[in-house]
């Protein structure tokens, strides 16, 4: 913590980027990498991880259920006797599951009950206990960055998300669309000089150095694009760019993906939600591929603020619910398993007779995962997730 602050001060004084400084001066950088993918809007977990053994599931979703595994390509892919995977992921991510690099944690989420997207997202990104004093403006990824020696965090978003706000200065860069900068090096230096010693000084110099780094990493891609070569689109393109930066320069990443709030006509094996899952699956597979040898030391966690109602609503969609399913993927992940505490999915086990329950609280799950990945001490875990009791689900 003190070391980190000393580094920040140094970075401010020399107008060097914090990340560069850290890489130059810190102890050998932690080799392993972590990317959090946040699905904003509360994705419908029951369509991703299908409770194929539950006849109540099929009774509750006459129009939007995913069929039990069969030879039909629009049916779920078998994961275990109880669970199947949405067919949109059959070609992209199902192979990773079979290859033991992808696991799912059903019944996960927060005990926050507001069912508000914004409050629940904020509360999850803060990663603090629901009761008692909260420190607003301190997200759990930021605290993780402070406890890890040699962490090089980066938010792959246009604005800095709450999860990365806090004591450590974290840069951000949206990668959905890229344009060549026009402010040149001399002008950048003069602009930065106006901010030196002001509250925004570190952000300004960080912004310039990240911009330069992104341009260096993406030079080949932009060159290919200018020759009109076919490139990836949407989240797949974004995920490949993230991988290029994480492979070389950043070991803690965050990206968010929107469009999951499916109140109306969400579809089943095909349709709106299937398209979203397809794009996400292609992106995660592309990320793994682009990481190359570094994939071995990389973990990806996909999470969302809550699940959706177990029953379909009046518009062949689903409303805000409770329990969700987290995904854990990576070269060293103990995949091919459905992890964590579970119950049979039937009417009697629904939470408030409406949603999947939360049996695997996210702070405990993520805390357990981080403990394995970084060999963090209990007090370090407590810094990241104050008051949480980490639970090792055997995912790493």
């Amino acid at each position: 913590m003190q070391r980190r602050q000393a580094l920040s001060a140094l970075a401010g004084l020399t107008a060097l980027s914090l990340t560069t400084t850290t890489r130059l001066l810190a102890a050998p950088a932690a080799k392993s990498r972590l990317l959090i993918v946040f699905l904003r809007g509360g994705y419908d977990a029951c369509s991703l991880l299908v409770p194929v053994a539950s006849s109540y599931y099929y009774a509750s979703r006459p129009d939007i259920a995913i069929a039990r595994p069969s030879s039909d390509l629009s049916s779920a892919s078998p994961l275990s006797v109880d669970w199947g995977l949405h067919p949109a992921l059959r070609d992209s991510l199902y192979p990773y599951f079979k290859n033991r690099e992808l696991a799912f944690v059903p019944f996960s989420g927060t005990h926050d009950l507001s069912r508000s997207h914004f409050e629940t997202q904020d509360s999850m990104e803060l990663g603090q206990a629901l009761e008692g004093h909260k420190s607003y403006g301190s997200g759990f990824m930021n605290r993780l960055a402070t406890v890890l020696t040699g962490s090089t965090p980066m938010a792959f978003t246009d604005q800095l998300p709450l999860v990365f706000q806090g004591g450590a200065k974290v840069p951000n860069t949206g990668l959905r669309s890229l344009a060549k900068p026009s402010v040149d090096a001399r002008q950048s230096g003069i602009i930065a000089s106006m901010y030196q010693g002001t509250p925004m000084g570190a952000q300004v110099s960080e912004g310039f150095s990240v911009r330069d780094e992104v341009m260096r990493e993406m030079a080949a891609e932009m060159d290919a694009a200018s020759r009109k070569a076919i490139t990836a689109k949407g989240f797949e393109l974004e995920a490949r760019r993230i991988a290029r930066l994480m492979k070389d320069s950043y070991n803690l990443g965050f990206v968010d993906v929107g469009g999951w709030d499916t109140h109306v006509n969400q579809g089943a094996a095909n349709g709106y939600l299937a398209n979203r899952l397809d794009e996400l699956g292609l992106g995660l597979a592309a990320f793994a591929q682009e990481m190359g040898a570094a994939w071995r030391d990389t973990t990806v966690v996909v999470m969302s603020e809550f699940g959706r109602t177990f029953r379909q609503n009046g518009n062949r969609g689903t409303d805000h619910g409770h329990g969700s399913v987290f995904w854990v993927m990576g070269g060293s992940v103990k995949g091919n398993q459905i992890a964590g505490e579970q119950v049979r999915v039937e009417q009697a086990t629904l939470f408030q007779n409406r949603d999947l329950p939360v049996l695997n609280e996210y702070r405990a799950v993520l805390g357990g995962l981080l403990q394995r990945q970084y060999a963090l001490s209990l007090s370090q875990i407590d810094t990241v997730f104050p008051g949480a009791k980490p639970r090792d689900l055997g995912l790493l």
Partner: protein
Amino acid sequence: MPVLRLASVLLVAALAGCAAPLDSGVSAYPPASTDAYAQVNRITWGATPAAVARLQAMGLRAYVADQLHPGHEAGLPAEVQAQIDAMTIAQRPLVDLVQEMEQRRKDAEANTDDEAKKAGQRAYQAEMNRLAREAAARHLLRALYSPHQVQQEMAWFWLNHFSVHQAKSNLRALVGDYEETAIRPHALGKFRDLLGAVVQHPAMLRYLDNEQNAAGRVNENFARELMELHTLGVDAGYSQHDVQELARVLTGVGVNLRHNNPGLRKELQGFYVRRGLFEFNPARHDFAAKELLGQPIRSRGLGELEEALDRLARSPATARFICRKLMSFWLTDEPPLALLQAMVQTFERSEGDIAKTLEVLFMSPEFSRAEQQKLKDPVRFVVSAVRLAYDEKPVLNVGPMLNWINRMGEPLYGRATPDGYSLQSAAWASPGQLSTRFEVAKAIGSGSAGLFRTEGPQAQERAAFPQLANALYYQSIIKTLAPATLNALEQAASPQEWNAFLLSSPEMMRR
């Protein structure tokens, strides 16, 4: 083109060699005080030489009173009004426009030939995009040139408070009308009137799925956001039960794009309401007894909604929630508690009179005294820069401004979630945001960003170099700049670069 080039050459020649490009000798206005500059910067979308002169001539109290009670005249310069009048959204009544677009969509779908179908769909999408862009352009033209600046700012504020996303369904054809008929007329009026207009506008009913909400097939999306985001605020103590009850109140409140009204049983006919595209369909309404926030709802039919909105608008939680947001928009993220309390009291006593509530804020010593605290959001950054650069000389094309605003992540009608963009300064202070902002500053400062080049086949271009080194700069802005900023300006190698540095300075990031 030759004229433009000549003008640039003359300017560059006049300015060459000096760090500060223009001489302060020529000005149509009396000398500007730094106090007046700071006040105008805080009250309007951004200080201009003309606005500072107006405030100085009128005095703060009269200026504020004029801003809070703008009357019904648009008051736009004729040239700007003509740009707006030429828009499809200004010429076509909403019902006609929406029905025609709906027909075009259906015609495209009905094509049996694949190529013709694709072409029809593309043409439909292009027209929908154009309609939404017209609405956004109109919004910016008003922000730039309306004498009623506070009204325009509050129109943005309420659009953001009652945020809708144009990408959903046919909202691109609706957002212009939403802003024009539901938001702007009530922007400085009574909160309850504003709420009522928003809740019955098809843009909002579509966006939050309430047109799908019917007895036995309840959709609670709108009910929840109506309490959480629009009135009470998230920690106001309402329950999941209240959400469900309000959702039942809202059953049958929807949208009808057709000419015809539905056939109804005789006993329901008296409850039916149709106003343009808005429809209350009693056959879809849940008439069973309801209770909201611990009190029964006594009306029946659409009256239930009015009763529920009365209750929400009058709640002390709503007064606190709205006043806190107003404070954050206008002055600071850390509200002085006494001032906040005074605003809340005024809001409650005046039954949600927005102008009266703002008057308390604008006339408070904190408002005039405060240091620059608020970081400009992208819309304000762009609008204030163009206002300062061109004063009352209207741009011919706001397209570049729309692109800059999009690039910085705050497109109009483009917030993906119903909570609206953050009003907190910290939300716009990230490294990525700032480096993009400097790119935009450079584009505006260059004077060749396309603001004075019309679109279309007979594109015209006018010479218009941004006059940032104007009398206002020498009389007052310069006194507000830190030594580091002045030092940077001295290093400018050209007037364009000088402009870029000024717009990139810490002082121009805040209001």
